[in-house]
């Protein structure tokens, strides 16, 4: 099958063109080794099927971001049969800059002139024939949005792909051409593909070329000594960039037929419109306020169980659908559900029905271990993860709209100054905010960051922005603290947990940017695209892609991991299924690692069943809602320990938000309120759920994943030890629970020691680096 690659500037309509050409056949995959998404699909309307490859949007073929390297390597090394260069007609100058570079590669090429309809409306026409003659490759005017002329484009591309094309350059300076010729011949001699392209890049001092062709660098340097340009001296980078732009301005102004008045008028209208929008959106006060409102609305529509705060109205009204399944779906005591929660409930109910009624029915005759394996092991874990799909998609939809309209770029513009203090660019703000919803889409979003180190640091702190699934832990344990210790404001605990997460994120970013992920802030040079309306089709294709990706992951990595945890919770060391969870392998692991948590306040200082906290934290690795689910499952153990009436167990299971279960756990284990808060913090800061880990692995640069896991473990451990140590300065008996100083006496010095180490580590690293640098200088 022939392969046609789509190349063009970001925002030139490339994705729209790709979607129009391939319809639903698009397939999303990852490039080997590089973490940039590659998409391919099939175009079927020609005599033979053609594979279309969507390359990342790029401004040039120089290796500035990982995306540009991907696009460049694909075109040079993978030898596509044709390159379709999509050019935004409303911004001909900058778009053709890439075209002049693509022309230098030995590959058949067609130019798709997009958005010409917009230009025509503004009173400008483009002489396609003249453009074609000038470039020497076919040019087709298309509208990717309205599917205009796409078939003609593909026919031309197919024709072009039949004959090989020799690369040619637009550089006219005789002396430089002479040098290009010499190097091209040298490349040809050593059988390098695309000699012309490599030769020009080498003259431009391109990083990759200089590294790959050291033998030729001397030749270029020799020549450069003899060359002198009046304006630029021997600055070849600027000479060639300037030559390209000069060529474009000289030749393509004649191609454009402009009625000068109309063009100016159109430009003014455009400027006025975007100025008006900008005046509000990037205003000193309103801009920031409006962003807060937009963000709040997005989260409200995705996660709220009290839509538009109408809950109060329903206090004394029983809706007519009370008692039917509709009740749980759209309405709860708190109020009306937001679309996100509604979808979540719909999924949850469907899955519950499949699991408890359909599959459990099939399993009625099966042995206990099998039905437990299918229902509790495989399905429960799988459904728990899939249940999040709707909310993730809703969140993604909102953020995609913000991206499509051009608002996201303005957000980065507004917040860049603030974020620079932390060593990040304004762009990093968006994934962090998304983290409050779900880490998975947030981590994917970090692709827009140009610098690998900045990206690594951002991905690592995303889980600290407490996600939707961590909220149940907060609600249940904060509620438990309130009840067991007589602490009144539950909200205060909840909010301070969010604040702790944010503070930890800031500290960790600062530390990383000064140590392991060191580097100056990456330059912030970004196009601010024109405001436009989002396109329904693009949004739907995007959501479908995300959904496919997520489902694939749920059925592979996540399914396997849930099965492992199921096995550990249900089997003992004798490889037999256990009656109670406390005899399981997991419980014994919990017992074993429990002393480790002593400095954090939920280890050895607790009663004999104190291992439940360790176990709950481990089950939280699958999905954070498992933490409270584990509390509820293990409720029976706590009830037995407290010598309470066994009927109390049922009450625990009926209490869905887990507050009663955590009260029972608190009383049975004798944990202090400080320990409880440290436990919440631990779950928030430690290794995130499997879904997030799998995403992190895919998105992080190669080799960084294992360090990231270690980072999460260390950060949560040290962070919680600090929190616990600080909280212990306050009395333990706020309410009725007895204060047992003896048990804590030895935990505090340990915590203090850890705090001291934590504070000193960054300095130690700095000193170490400084000393090493000094030594290596001496050695020279």
């Amino acid at each position, binding site marked *: 099958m022939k392969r046609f690659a789509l190349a063009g500037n970001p925002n030139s309509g490339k994705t729209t063109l790709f979607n129009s050409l391939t319809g639903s056949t698009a397939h999303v995959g990852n490039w080997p080794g590089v973490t940039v998404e590659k998409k391919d699909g099939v175009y079927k309307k020609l005599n033979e099927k053609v594979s279309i490859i969507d390359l990342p949007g790029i*401004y*040039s073929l*120089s290796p*500035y971001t990982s995306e540009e390297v991907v696009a460049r390597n694909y075109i040079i090394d993978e030898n596509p049969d044709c390159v379709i260069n999509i050019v935004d007609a*409303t*911004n001909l*100058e*900058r778009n053709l*800059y890439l075209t002049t570079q693509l022309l230098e590669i030995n590959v058949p090429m067609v130019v798709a002139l997009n958005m010409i309809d917009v230009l025509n409306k503004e009173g400008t026409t483009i002489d396609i024939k003249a453009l074609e003659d000038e470039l020497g490759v076919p040019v087709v005017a298309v509208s990717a949005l309205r599917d205009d002329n796409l078939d003609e484009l593909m026919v031309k591309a197919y024709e072009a792909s039949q004959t090989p094309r020799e690369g040619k350059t637009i550089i006219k300076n005789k002396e430089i051409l002479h040098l290009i010729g010499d190097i091209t011949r040298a490349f040809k001699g050593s059988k390098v593909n695309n000699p012309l392209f490599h030769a020009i890049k080498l003259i431009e001092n391109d*990083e990759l070329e200089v590294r790959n062709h050291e033998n030729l660098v001397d030749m270029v340097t020799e020549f450069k000594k003899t060359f002198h340009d009046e*304006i*630029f001296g021997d600055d070849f*980078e*600027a000479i060639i*960039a*300037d030559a390209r*732009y*000069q060529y474009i301005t000289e030749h393509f102004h004649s191609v454009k037929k402009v009625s000068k008045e109309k063009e100016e008028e159109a430009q003014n209208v455009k400027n006025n419109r*975007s100025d008006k929008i*900008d005046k509000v959106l*990037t*205003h*000193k006060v309103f*801009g*920031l306020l409006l962003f807060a409102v937009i963000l709040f609305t997005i989260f409200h529509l995705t996660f709220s169980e009290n839509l538009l705060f109408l809950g109060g109205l329903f206090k004394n009204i029983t809706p007519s659908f009370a008692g039917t399944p509709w009740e749980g779906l759209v309405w709860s005591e708190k109020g009306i559900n937001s679309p996100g929660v509604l979808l979540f409930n719909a999924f949850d109910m469907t899955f519950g029905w499949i699991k408890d009624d359909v599959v459990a029915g099939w399993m009625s005759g099966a042995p206990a271990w099998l039905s437990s394996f299918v229902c509790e092991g495989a399905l429960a874990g799988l459904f728990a993860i899939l249940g999040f799909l709707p909310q993730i998609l809703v969140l993604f939809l909102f953020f995609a709209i913000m991206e499509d309209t051009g608002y996201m*770029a303005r957000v980065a*513009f*507004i917040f*860049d*100054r*603030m974020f*620079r203090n932390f060593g990040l660019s*304004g762009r990093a703000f968006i994934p962090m905010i998304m983290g409050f919803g779900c880490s998975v889409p947030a981590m994917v979003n970090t692709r827009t960051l140009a610098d690998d180190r900045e990206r690594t640091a951002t991905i690592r702190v995303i889980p600290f922005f407490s996600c939707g699934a961590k909220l149940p832990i907060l609600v249940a344990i904060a509620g438990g603290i309130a009840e067991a210790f007589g602490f009144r404001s539950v909200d205060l605990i909840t909010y301070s947990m969010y604040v702790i997460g944010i503070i930890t994120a800031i500290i960790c970013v600062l530390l990383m940017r000064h140590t392991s992920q060191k580097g100056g802030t990456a*330059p*912030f*040079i*970004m*196009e*601010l*695209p*024109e405001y436009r309306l989002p396109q329904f089709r693009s949004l739907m294709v995007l959501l479908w892609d995300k959904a496919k990706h997520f489902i694939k992951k749920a059925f592979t990595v996540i399914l396997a991991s849930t099965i492992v945890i199921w096995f550990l919770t249900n089997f003992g060391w004798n490889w037999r299924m256990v009656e109670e969870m406390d005899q399981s392998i997991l419980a014994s692991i919990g017992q074993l690692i429990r002393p480790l948590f002593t400095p954090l306040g939920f280890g050895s200082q607790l009663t004999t069943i104190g291992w439940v906290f360790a176990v709950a934290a481990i089950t939280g690795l699958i999905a954070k809602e498992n933490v409270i689910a584990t509390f509820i499952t293990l409720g029976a153990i706590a009830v037995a320990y407290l010598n309470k009436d066994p009927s109390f167990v049922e009450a625990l299971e009926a209490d869905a938000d887990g507050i009663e279960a955590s009260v029972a756990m608190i009383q049975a284990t004798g944990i202090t309120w400080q320990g409880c808060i440290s436990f919440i913090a631990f779950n928030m800061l430690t290794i995130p759920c499997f879904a997030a880990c799998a995403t992190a692995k895919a998105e992080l640069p190669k080799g960084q994943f294992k360090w990231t896991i270690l980072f999460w473990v260390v950060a949560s451990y040290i962070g919680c030890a600090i929190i616990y140590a600080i909280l212990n300065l306050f009395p333990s008996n706020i309410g009725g629970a007895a204060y047992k100083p003896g048990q804590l006496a030895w935990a505090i010095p340990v915590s203090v020691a850890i705090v001291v180490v934590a504070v000193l580590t960054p300095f130690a690293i700095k000193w170490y680096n400084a000393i090493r640098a000094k030594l290596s200088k001496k050695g020279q």
Partner: protein
Amino acid sequence: MLKRLDEFKIGETGLIKKVEGEGRLRRRLLDMGVTPNATIYLRKKAPFGDPLEITIRGYELTLRKTEAQLIVLEVEDEAK
């Protein structure tokens, strides 16, 4: 009058004379069309005074003051 872009006031226009800096940063500026003889119009500044938004070659580009400082321009007459 020669002036660096970070010293520009909102609404000022200038012709690029020189692009300083080195490595990837400079490469990026050149690739985005910030080359000598191009015209830059300073549209606005972000709420915290930085980064800047400029119009160049018919589109909007944002860059920080640290990057803008590398660009030397000949200020155009305001009367024009």
